[in-house]
């Protein structure tokens, strides 16, 4: 789930941090720059692991801040295909399930990857919600939000940043686009196998 990635970056250290010890100031700057951000192909940055080397410290003309070339390691959240992760149900719609890990919410289980055979029934508790039920041996097993759901990672994709296309779209389409915020990293999971799905099914 978590990997270390080594990155080199040219960092501008703002002058108001000059009174702090160098390592702490650079760690703080790196944190504010990379923490909770997605780097393509590397995943979601969770934490700064350590600083390997700091070079430079030059002040460029016209600038009050010093610039350092820092090489450091970050702890990245990058699930690999085939990994089994347990998460909580966030929402359940007609397109499938959406699961959440607390720090990462964009895990989708689309309908083809749900446990089959299954059927859906409208859930009165949720707005636009649909509850999915797995049929096995004549017994119905519903997927509700009570316990953790185990899923296997099927695919991890990094969709490109959408360009602003206000010229062509109508107002309705604009509203739909705005309601779903852009997700820079999307994990697609599957629960179509033995041992996957809510833990209560298998205990």
């Amino acid at each position, binding site marked *: 789930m978590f990997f270390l990635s*080594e990155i080199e970056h040219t960092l501008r250290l703002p002058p108001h941090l000059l009174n702090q010890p160098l390592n702490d100031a650079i760690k703080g700057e790196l944190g504010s720059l990379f923490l*909770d951000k997605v780097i393509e192909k590397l995943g979601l940055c969770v934490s700064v*692991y350590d600083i390997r080397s700091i070079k430079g410290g030059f002040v460029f003309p016209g600038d009050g801040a010093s610039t350092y070339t820092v090489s450091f390691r970050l702890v990245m959240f990058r699930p690999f295909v085939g*990994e*089994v992760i347990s998460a909580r149900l966030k929402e359940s719609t007609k397109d499938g399930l959406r699961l959440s890990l607390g720090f990462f919410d964009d895990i989708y289980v689309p309908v083809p990857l749900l446990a089959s055979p299954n059927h859906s029934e409208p859930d009165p508790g949720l707005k636009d919600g649909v509850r999915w039920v797995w049929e096995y041996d004549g017994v119905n097993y519903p997927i509700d939000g009570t316990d953790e759901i185990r899923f296997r990672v099927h695919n991890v994709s990094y969709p490109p940043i959408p360009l602003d296309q206000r010229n062509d779209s109508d107002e309705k389409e604009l509203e739909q686009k705005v309601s779903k915020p852009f997700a820079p990293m999307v994990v697609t999971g599957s629960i179509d196998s033995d*041992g996957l799905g809510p833990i209560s099914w298998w205990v």
Partner: protein
Amino acid sequence: MKILESSAGALTNFEVLDLLRSRGAGKDPTCVIASVSPSEFKVFDYLEQTAACNQTKEIVHKFVDECKKYDLAKAEILNVVNMRPSSAVEVYTIIEECDSRMEEKIDEFVETIAQILPPPPSQEQPGEENAESKEESKEETAN
């Protein structure tokens, strides 16, 4: 920004939890003002609920040594340490081609897991209830 090495090593959940704990994250509300940002805290919250919260370095090393005789891939050992399967069904999910590679050794493997890796907090409660009921039945038979 230049990526020097995209994958410099895989970390188990326990290692990340250890890192966050050494920075000062903790479960009590007093530890909130530490050098741990809110997003790191969310990761810490998630990891505390998994099996990693009860593990130590010695336990993980011992388990990896035991796994050598089962010929498992590194990713599979990582998955097992993170997930801590408690039954054969869960082992089937994690390990590919389980039937052909493990055959009868599956039960032995589940036993090894149960002995070396401590259970996650969600699984401990039913275990305690069982222990209490066993003690009660022992007292009844003694009387």
